[in-house]
């Protein structure tokens, strides 16, 4: 047990990777994640005060990061989303490569990130914080200031939304389609 409260720099360094990955998960772009990390750290420093337990610092930092990312998402022009672009005729094409297991794994990750990026901001935050970053339900409840029961039910819905998006790539992700005839029609 340390005999003095940690400095801001010590804590920020400790949580740097977690926060960066949370921002990357929510925003989907490394450059945006770097900007969000900077803004998160600035906001955190400005509000840094006093001593809290270790667990409280983690949720406190994450709360700031989530709010920062939500602010950035809301600033983004709607046309930047993949759905909006596709509505305007953009076809991302089929870039799947299944030559080797490694490439397929990389492709799966890419598609997962893309699918997460197509979720609305609330679903996205839940999936990133719980399923990607591994925050506990208790921590999530503190970060999002929602009861655990609400978190669980919303997370369940978010996962269903994610599966629905991923079902378009059923060969890779193996979910049963919600509507098989739609999938046949796309081909």
């Amino acid at each position, binding site marked *: 047990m340390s005999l003095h409260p940690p400095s801001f720099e010590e804590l920020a360094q400790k949580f740097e990777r977690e926060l960066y*990955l949370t921002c990357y998960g929510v925003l989907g772009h490394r450059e945006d994640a*770097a900007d969000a990390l*900077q803004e998160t750290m*600035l906001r955190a420093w*400005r*509000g840094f*005060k006093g001593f809290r337990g270790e667990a409280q610092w983690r949720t406190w930092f994450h709360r700031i990061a989530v709010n920062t990312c939500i602010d950035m998402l809301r600033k983004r022009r709607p046309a930047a989303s993949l759905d909006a672009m596709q509505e305007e005729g953009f076809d991302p094409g089929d870039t799947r490569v299944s030559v080797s297991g490694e490439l397929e794994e990389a492709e799966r990750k890419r598609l997962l990130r893309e699918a997460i990026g197509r979720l609305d901001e609330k679903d996205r935050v839940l999936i990133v914080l719980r399923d990607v970053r*591994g925050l506990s339900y208790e921590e999530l409840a503190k970060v999002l*200031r929602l009861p655990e029961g609400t978190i669980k039910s919303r997370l369940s819905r978010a996962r269903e939304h994610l599966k629905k998006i991923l079902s378009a790539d059923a060969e890779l*992700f193996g979910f049963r389609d919600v509507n098989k005839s739609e999938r046949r029609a796309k081909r």
Partner: protein
Amino acid sequence: MTCTEFERLLDQREPDGQTKQEMQRHADTCGHCRLLLELRALDQDEKVPETASTQWKAAVRTEKAKTEAKRRSGFWNSRAMAPVLAAAAILVAVIALRQPIADLGGRQTVPLSTVSNEEVRPAGTEAPTPEAARTGMPAAAPKLMAVATASPLDFGPGSAPREEAPEEAAEADEMPMFALGAMRNESGADALISGADAEYEETAFMSACDSAAVEDEIGTQPFTLVWVSETPAEAANTLLQAIGQPEIDVDMEESGACLSLAVSRENVSAFLKALETAGCDPLPAETDLPWDEEGVCRLELMIEKGGTDR
């Protein structure tokens, strides 16, 4: 293994080899759990780019330096320092001119700008006075002495002590807390909930208010409330109860906090009533709050320990 067990094991730091195998066997037959496994492994190989790390550290350093500079200038501009600065400025002027106090009486004040060219001899064209010879002062010294006899307000720009400062500072000290909050509102807080007549020390906490409302765009920055309270946990819980949120930990008594609140249309009236009871000033109207498309308003509540509650 059930899916619930699988998710519980996923949260374990380092499951043993056998557990990992069981989890893999389950994931091979369950698409849902395989997805959870893949999501958890998504960031495995990701690192923080060096530039991202450098970027935030530089930004925090700059912010620290700005805060420190502001704190120092606040000290120098404080009520206590103004008379000291004024006395120091006068002393410097007197020492520089080396004019005995007795000789100052009866001289006419001549603002520097009204001295005509004919009255000023080019430097070096007149015999140096004994004092000038001793001190090395240029021949223009007599003109400066005339100015020096004037009241401090006649000094040239940039050299006058700020006689306005003591009055401004006195005004600030005499202001009740709400008015002081109104001054701060210009730099950041949207509203202030506070105990009155409190001695308040500017801290990094307040600089958070400066930055919290940088952007005016509704919905981009949450509406910021600042609450100075002797019992910050109690203050926060009053508002949280009003919006049906669970209470916060009592250890916030020690340090204060920044809370993010989400208020819905259903509970905004109760929330505003709680703010009004607490003495929020100015009390925001429902239409002032940044509502999103789902009828939720996000607010930042900054609670600082201090002051005297009503």
